[in-house]
């Protein structure tokens, strides 16, 4: 008989020193942090900022967010993506991780490069995992960019999302802030509940 999957359990409130130790000031190295791109990474610099809100609209101060993305050429740094026409960038792994517990307003930010379109049809996007106390199974979502209207309109995954909920997946460029900043808030529940995927 084939083995069955090990069930998920919540990350709990005390993940910081295990999963994001340097961000929270613990004496242990981090494997990843908010700096998804290094100074040597190719591509257009972007900063993503946001907050995670619970069903009462309160910012969640103990969430952990993970980000997985293709590089500026649209290629993932993973053996399953072996397309020769999209260049790998040795300076880019494409993974970031940040907790919401080190800023006064429970916000997060990552510094990265804008991913390229992935397979000729998918608009630039970042894959997101949301973990927190109170989530027994992590939630998957995606972040798209507000200034990619044409590509977003043709994106086959967005097309599978009910039209009135697509906006929850679009990070909005905030031109009032210095740098190239996009805001991506995640609403766990309520009218503006973010679309989460069953993948």
């Amino acid at each position, binding site marked *: 008989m084939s083995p069955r999957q090990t069930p998920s359990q919540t990350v709990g409130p005390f993940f910081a020193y295990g999963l994001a130790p340097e961000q929270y000031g613990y004496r242990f190295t981090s494997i990843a942090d908010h700096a998804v791109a290094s100074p040597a990474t190719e591509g257009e610099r972007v900063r993503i900022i946001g907050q995670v809100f619970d069903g009462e609209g309160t910012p969640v101060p103990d969430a952990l967010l993970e980000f997985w993305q293709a590089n500026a050429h649209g290629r993932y740094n993973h053996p399953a993506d072996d397309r020769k026409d999209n260049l790998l960038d040795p300076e880019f792994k494409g993974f970031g991780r940040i907790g919401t517990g080190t800023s006064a307003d429970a916000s997060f930010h990552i510094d990265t490069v804008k991913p390229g379109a992935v397979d000729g049809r998918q608009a630039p996007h970042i894959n997101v995992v949301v*973990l927190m106390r109170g989530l027994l199974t992590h939630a998957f979502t995606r972040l798209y960019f507000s200034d990619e209207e044409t590509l977003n309109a043709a994106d086959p995954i967005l097309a599978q999302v009910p039209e009135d909920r697509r906006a929850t997946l679009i990070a909005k460029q905030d031109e009032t802030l210095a740098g190239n900043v996009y805001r991506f808030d995640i609403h766990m529940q309520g009218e503006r509940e973010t679309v989460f*995927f069953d993948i």
Partner: protein
Amino acid sequence: MDWSSHPAHVYRDYKSTVLRGPTKPLVAIDHTLSELTGPVYGQDSIGPLDADLTKNGQRNGEPLGERIIVTGRVVDENDRPQANTLIEIWQANAAGRYIHEIDQHDAPIDPNFLGAGRCVTDAAGRYRYMTIKPGAYPWGNHHNAWRPNHIHLSLFGPSFTSRLVTQMYFPGDPLLELDPIFHGVPEGARDRLISSFAIDVTEPQYALGYEFDIVLRGPNATPLEI
């Protein structure tokens, strides 16, 4: 997702799920390269003491508590060993206290125990780490609520779809029957979270051994040509 294995997002007995678990239907999507790839972390992510939590937090002596060895295999649903796979580990100390600054449980911090570590599976998918058996601790979910002894584990596996964060429990723990986090798992799947005592892993005069196999989601079909 295999919802016969994983907990639903809202499980009322675990109160924090009520305002945090998504309530609208999840949107099922076709798998693309975005889902079939994922971050790759292996041996190069590991420091020399990372797999020995009895040593990596020492300041002026040995940590207190019962030394244990935890080992097992990481496989996928087709029983294929998952080689060179990172496992991230964190836990409370022997007194049931986390080093985390928001843990206010009135139990002692152990200056020689951090409670965080990492290990990587070998070519046969086997992993092994040494630690101190974590204590039970109270929490605020309901009157007289106590978490069973557990170790937190995080794995990426081969793709974004195989991401797993879980908790390993210990055999014979009477608190399991009372724990809503454990009970959030579908009934037939709960036993998969309980390790087994293993005398052949136990080292004479040194440490008790426990075995815990981890099964990650297997590969799905090839990416859809979309």
